[in-house]
């Protein structure tokens, strides 16, 4: 029943070539840097990565893109303070982009986790991001049909995790992570501290353990934004 994994390498060991991987975080807030780097070390390629952004600087998702591991990005905002990794590959036609409005991205991921294959949203109606999509009118207003988004794996960063996988997050680092935990076949979480079951107040659990498969403790996790400001590159 204990979901603890001994190492980052063990936690990502079965993420194979061609996998679809959701990665938590909004910019550097909540980015699971150690898990991303473990996945780079593993060497899996042809990945489809789902994240709000598309990497920044030379670490994390940007380092994964630099290393040529990412076939496709599904995101809302592939720009950042140092967007070279994605921009270069995109302009060279070496990486595919599915651009999704941020709220639609969040809702598609939640729908994937909640067993809702499709829903309607006003977002993007009449824009090029709705091109080719089913349109339907409800109560006299047009809406765009959007499909659920699922993944083979989610890798996210949380604050506390008990051995059953119940999670809390740190401040706005929560962002997409609770949704991604729901929408992936296998959810892998790095937490600052693993605690015994019962240590997290049941009222304060943000992600219930049913959505979590593996935990790995990274006691003093790196913060992407701080690394970028320090000019760190992962190679």
């Amino acid at each position, binding site marked *: *029943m204990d979901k603890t994994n001994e190492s980052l390498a063990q936690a990502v060991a079965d993420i194979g070539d061609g996998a679809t991987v959701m990665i938590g975080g909004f910019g550097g807030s909540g980015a699971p840097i150690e898990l991303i780097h473990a996945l780079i070390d593993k060497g899996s390629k042809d990945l489809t990565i789902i994240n709000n952004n598309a990497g920044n600087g030379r670490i994390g998702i940007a380092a994964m893109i630099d290393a040529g591991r990412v076939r496709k990005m599904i995101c809302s905002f592939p720009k950042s303070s140092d967007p070279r990794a994605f921009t270069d590959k995109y302009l060279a036609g070496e990486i595919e982009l599915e651009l999704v409005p941020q709220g639609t991205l969040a809702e598609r991921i*939640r729908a*994937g*986790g*909640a*067993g*809702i294959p499709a829903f309607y949203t006003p977002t993007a109606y009449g824009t090029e991001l709705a091109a080719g999509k089913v349109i339907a009118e409800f109560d006299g207003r047009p809406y765009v049909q959007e499909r659920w988004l699922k993944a083979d794996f989610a890798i996210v960063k949380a604050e506390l995790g*008990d*051995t*059953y996988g*119940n999670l809390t997050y740190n401040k706005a680092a929560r962002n997409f992570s609770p949704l991604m935990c*729901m929408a992936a076949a296998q959810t892998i979480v790095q937490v600052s501290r693993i605690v*015994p*079951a*019962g240590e997290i107040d*049941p*009222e304060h*659990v943000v992600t*219930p*353990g*049913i*959505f979590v498969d593996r935990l790995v403790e990274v006691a003093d996790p790196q913060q992407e934004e701080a690394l970028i400001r320090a000019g760190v590159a992962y190679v």
Partner: protein
Amino acid sequence: MTVDTCEDIKLSNAQIAWRAAQDIRDGAYVNLGIGFPEMVARYQPPGRQAIFHTENGILNFGEAPPAGEEDWDLINAGKKAVTLKPGAAFFHHADSFAMVRGGHLDVAILGALQVAENGDLANWRVGTKGVPAVGGAMDLVHGAKQVSVITEHVTKKGEPKLVEKCTFPLTGVACITRVYTSHAVIDIKDRRFVLREKLAAMSFDELQAMTGARLHIDGPVADLIVPALQGEKSD
């Protein structure tokens, strides 16, 4: 009649529940329908611990508290007072049914009025009279990797509950994959009842005579062996 004879040699409800419990692996997330299915929780094999989900927003609840110590804000879907185990979590109804509809439960075990050979289930309403009430049954049948039924093999009047086609209003279409009865364990596979276990004291033909659709043999048929059990009162 064969049926009458076999009614004398049958499992009690507690024994049916015990048998169903043996198939729940350690660490499984399980929803037990209101009433008879709740008995399954009593018979978890030693060394295994399932985590029970209730639709009204609890994971990892435990048994009823002693009389007089109930907290009526801490109840299960049957509105009975429960307790918490370490590692419990609370969540709202939309998240709770995201767990259900999203396929996050490993096992759901429900009662039945009728089960058809294609996996259709009728368990929410006998006819069109009176006040209809569905609760979470129609969600739960689509909500778990394995959706099982526990039931008497025939009604009190001796009519088969395993049938070619349900005559009562449906709860779900092609949703049941395993049936634990008072006389047998039967899988539903390729729209057929496939016999897996039967009471040793009865012949295949005797069992078939109690069953409203053809029983198929596809692999070995084991003896259905269940211990004598104390405290068989269903609550």
